[in-house]
Every structure is written in structure tokens, then in C-alpha cells.
């Protein structure tokens, strides 16, 4: 299948009072037409920054893309002008943000907020745009759509607002839909509905989705491929099967280990010890080493490159080097790897820490 998006060695920094924060450090991946790529990783690992960069939505200052390429249909978005980006945003690349409570303009009717994109990108006259808006709202499952277009965001519940946000993102049938934790702020049943909705729409429009989540259960359900991020890097990337059944990176083991399954007891949950590094002064060597019980001496000296595991599966850990000792994933993770076929709706333990 052809790549609709290729990200090559992307580096992004933020200039803060404390100094330069290297938030993204050499991220590369590609996205194929019609596929769903999930990005997982701890809070602060750079998931949002990476995806925002694709739509060039990093606030600047303080943010800046220091190097790298973002090829969308072969065209480098890093070099695109603001005007060109305005024509791509909302039309080719749409974004759904995490918090539906704050991502809608409080003083603008939701109908107008949805129509804005239609009028801008598809040059629709207002009347037609309004009709399409009502259709969109019905599509995302909002009852009484024709009345609700004239209401304001505060008259909607959280789940309804997220449907509105989804409708805004879908308005122009984007080729890439970026969903940054679209369901984190919602309760479990609504989450499931929104996910269902996105899958449905993807089938109809054949768009590609980049999906950020902390919920590995959701990943197992919706994603084709998974990228695991840590401290501004992709540490492992592969198909869902690669990541869930044959994870290679100790950080991925940690993530899987901290994920409860239906048939496991609470006691078996293993949290990853410590906390992510301060990106103001990234440590020498492998950023994960201080928290990694399988770390090798070389991790303290040199950062591991991406090792190829299979055609679809890559991981950045010295454990894959030919010199490395044979190290097996922990028992708990192995047990889980077998049990994943049966997973239902499950969440990682990190979820609770997020406020």
C-alpha cells in the first residue's frame, strides 16, 4: 500500500525559560492509506507534539521544528508556507483534540463552528453548508441535529461535544485524521461509541487515522500498527500483533505489564518504576536506562539505534544486538501476551495519574 505520510528524522524543540527542551528527538514513521496507527507512551513522551507537528500546529514561539521532513503525499510540510498549511488543515489533515470541554469556541454556535471548514475548503454557500452540517451531526449520532446546530457548546454534554469535534474534523473528508486521546475525557460507554463511530467513518471514507491513547485495550481494538514513544523517540514500532505478541523493548514490556487484563489479579500489575527524564537535560545514552531493570552497560554510553526485528517490526534497544545476552520478557508480560486475545476494555494504570 502507498504511504500517504512519511515522517523522517523529526526533531522539535521548545525554547523555555529553563533552556531548550528537546521534546522530539529523531522520530521517523510512515502512515499508509486507510490504516490506523496508534501511538502510545507515557505522559510527556511527545505524542501530542509529534502529531501536532504534522498539521504544523506547534505554537511558535516557543516551539520549533529543528530538522526533519514531514512528507504528505510527497510534499514536505515542514517547508510549506502558513497559507499552504491553511489549505491543508481541516481539508486533508484534521485533528480531534483530547478535551471536548475546552476545544470548542464557547461563544460561537456549534453549527457555525462546523460550517467554517466547509465554507472555507469546499466553497459551499451557507445554506448548503448548513444542510451538510446537519447531516454530519446526524452521522456522528447527535439527535435533533437540525435544532442543535443553533446551540452553543455549553448546552452539550462532554460526549456530545466530542461528537461535534469529530464532526468538525470529518467535515471535509480528510485524508488523515489525527485523534489525540479523543476519548480520555469521556466515560467508558461514550468512549466505545466514539471509537465505533471513527471506525465506521474510516471504512466509508478510506481515510488514515493516527490515534493517540493511553488505553492499550483500545489500541488492540482499533489499530493496525502501533508506535511506542518514550522521551521524544519512537522506541518500538510494529503491527498490533508484533507489539502485543512479540514485544522487544523493555519499555513496551513495562507498558504491557502495567496493563490490567480481565483474567489477571491486581497484584500482578507491574508499574514502571521512576519517572521520565527531564527533557531539558536528556541523559546520556538510552533515556530509558535509569528505569530499565534489563539495562546493559552500553545503554549508559550510547543510544541504541533502531534494530529490525521483521519487515514490519523495529525496536530501539541494545538487547537486539548480536552481542547482547539473551533476556526474556518478564513472566507477567509473557502470560499476558498469551491472554491478549481475550481482552475487553482495559486501561493502563497510568491513566489514573493523569488529571
Amino acid at each position: 500500500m502507498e504511504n500517504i505520510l512519511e515522517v523522517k528524522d523529526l526533531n522539535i524543540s521548545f525554547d523555555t525559560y529553563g533552556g531548550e527542551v528537546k521534546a522530539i528527538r529523531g522520530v521517523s514513521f510512515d502512515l499508509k492509506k486507510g490504516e490506523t496507527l496508534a501511538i502510545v507512551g507515557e505522559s510527556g513522551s511527545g505524542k501530542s507534539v509529534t502529531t501536532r507537528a504534522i498539521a504544523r500546529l506547534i505554537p511558535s514561539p516557543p516551539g520549533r521544528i529543528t530538522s526533519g521532513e514531514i512528507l504528505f503525499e510527497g510534499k514536505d510540510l515542514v517547508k510549506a508556507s502558513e497559507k499552504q498549511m491553511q489549505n491543508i488543515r481541516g481539508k486533508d489533515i484534521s485533528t480531534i483534540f483530547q478535551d471536548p470541554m475546552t476545544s470548542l469556541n464557547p461563544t460561537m454556535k456549534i453549527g457555525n463552528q462546523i460550517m467554517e471548514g466547509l465554507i472555507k475548503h469546499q466553497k459551499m454557500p451557507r445554506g448548503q453548508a448548513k444542510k451538510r452540517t446537519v447531516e454530519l451531526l446526524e452521522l456522528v449520532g447527535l439527535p435533533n441535529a437540525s435544532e442543535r446546530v443553533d446551540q452553543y457548546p455549553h448546552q452539550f454534554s462532554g460526549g456530545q461535544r466530542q461528537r461535534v469535534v469529530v464532526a468538525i474534523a470529518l467535515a471535509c473528508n480528510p485524508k488523515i485524521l489525527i485523534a489525540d486521546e479523543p476519548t480520555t475525557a469521556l466515560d467508558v460507554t461514550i468512549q466505545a461509541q466514539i471509537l465505533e463511530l471513527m471506525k465506521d467513518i474510516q471504512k466509508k471514507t478510506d481515510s488514515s487515522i493516527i490515534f493517540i491513547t493511553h488505553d492499550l485495550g483500545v489500541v488492540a481494538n482499533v489499530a493496525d500498527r502501533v508506535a511506542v514513544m518514550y522521551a521524544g523517540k519512537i522506541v518500538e514500532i510494529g503491527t498490533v500483533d508484533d507489539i502485543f505478541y512479540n514485544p522487544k523493548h523493555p519499555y513496551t514490556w513495562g507498558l504491557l505489564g502495567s496493563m490490567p487484563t480481565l483474567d489477571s489479579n491486581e497484584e500482578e500489575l507491574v508499574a514502571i518504576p521512576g519517572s521520565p527524564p527531564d527533557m531539558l537535560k536528556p541523559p546520556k545514552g538510552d533515556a530509558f536506562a535509569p528505569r530499565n531493570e534489563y539495562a546493559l552497560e552500553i545503554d549508559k554510553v550510547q543510544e541504541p539505534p533502531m534494530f529490525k526485528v521483521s519487515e514490519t517490526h523495529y525496536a530501539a534497544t541494545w538487547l537486539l544486538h548480536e552481542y547482547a545476552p539473551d533476556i526474556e520478557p518478564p513472566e507477567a508480560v509473557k502470560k499476558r501476551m498469551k491472554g491478549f486475545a481475550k481482552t475487553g476494555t482495559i486501561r493502563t494504570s497510568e491513566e489514573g495519574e493523569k488529571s
Partner: protein
Amino acid sequence: MAKYIFQRLVYMFITLFIIATASFFLMKQLPGSPFKAEEKLSAAQLEILYEKYNLNDPLPIQYLNYLGNLFQGDLGVSFQMNNQPVTEILMSRIPVSAHLGIQAMIIGTIIGMLLGVVAALYSNSVIDYASNIISVIGISIPSFIFAGLLQYYLGVELGILPVAFWGSFAHTIMPTIALAIFPLAISARFVRTELIEVLGSDYIVTARAKGVSNATLMFKHGLRNALIPLVTVMGPMAVSLMTGTLVIEQIFAVPGIGEQFVTSIMTDDFPIIMGTTLFFAFFFILIILVIDILYGIIDPRIRIAGGKD
């Protein structure tokens, strides 16, 4: 919303009642008689006047009468100015003060808004620093000092504007500037903070993600949301206009209520002092109410939800 307004009206009423009551009993404590100016009056004539104004009644009755009169807008008569009714005096002077106040408020707010917007757009630039300094100075330095400086430099030294009195547009310029400084400073600062916050908010990113142009982003999404809360600083502005009126009118000899008030303080004309005080209280409470209602009207969040949180 209706319930909320009703509730506010009740509070407004109670507050006014308390002020009216307090000022009535204060008046009774203070020395002097309403007829001091007419010393030629014979005892008999005085008696008639006392009778006419029911000043021989017991205090509670007088109080009720006073409240009754107040309801009809009768604030009593002046001690010093030939027993002219206070209401009449105030009515003749309010238009002048209102003219000055409104002119200052509009000019100050508009310039302040522009300054705030520019400062927010170019935050941390020279313009931003300048605007910050202007607002700190405008908020800090008392308006009578500005007035003094203006009067001395523009009026006395350079002689380009009339030093005092009322009449032509030129007469209004210096008092307007002096009164406009505070609204200018406070709205510049407020708009700047608000706009920076709005521009950093999630819904602005959402709008940007839709691909809207910078102009649309700024006007439809940014400014609108940043300017709505500006209504809330109308309270402090009203207060500053009231205090400002008292001193500025005095300095520039503008025949408004402020100047009358200060003169009355010098001459112990208590009915006018009390009347003006009541008027100020009424004006202030009214402004607060108007702000609340206005905010409800222009901000859809409150408009529908009914009342502020």
C-alpha cells in the same frame, strides 16, 4: 435569568434602603438647619416652614416622610442655595458630568482596547513593554495628579488649552484626558491578559486545525472571546469615574455634580452632600446590575444558563 435579575433587584433595593436610612440618621446628627441662609425669617415664618417640611414631627414620622419623599425622587432642599430642591440642583448638573464621564469612558476604553490587542499580539515586544508601563502608570497615579500636570503644562505653560471652566469642546479636552487615563489603563491591561489567554486556548487550536485564515482566527475566535469579559471592568471604571468626577471637576471648574459636591462639603450643605451620596450609591448599584445583565446578554454561556456561577 429573570429570577436572577429579580434577586439582584432585591439586593439593590436593600442596599439602597440601608444607605438611605444611614444617611437620614446621619443628617439628624449633623449641625445646622435647612433655613440657615434665610436669617431674616421671623420665628413665625420659620415655624411655618418647619410645619411645611414636617420638621416638628417625631423622628420616626420624619423618617417615614423622608422615605416617602425619596421614593418620589425628593431629596430635600439645600441649606445654602436659597432652599433650592436638591433634586433640581443635581438634575441641572448631572448632564455635564455625564457628558464628561461618557466621553472619557469611551475614549479611554477604545484606546485601551487597541493598546491591549497590540500588546497581546506582539507580547514581549517594545510595544508590549510600553503598553505595560502605560497601564501601570495609569492605574497607579491618581487622576488629580494627571489633571494638575495637564493643567500646568498644557494650560499654564503652553497655553494651548483653556485652564478651566466649561463651554466649548476645548474645555472638555483636559478633564476628559485626566478621566480617561484609568479606563484606558485598566482596559489595556485587561484586554492584553485576556487575549493572550484566549489565543493560547484549545479552541483556538481547534480553529487553526480547521484551516481558518489568521484574520478569521483573530476576529471571529480571538477578539470576540477576549472582549466580552471587558464588560466586567466597567464596575471599577464607574467607581473611578465617580471619584474622578469629584476631583477633576473641582480642578477644572467644571459645573458638574462633583464640583457641586466638593463646594457643598466646604459650606456644610448637608442635604446636597447626602443627596449626591445617595445618587452615587444608586448609580453604582445600577451599573453593577447593568453589567451583570449585559454580560448575560452578550455571553451565551450565561445567557442560557441563567445567572453567573
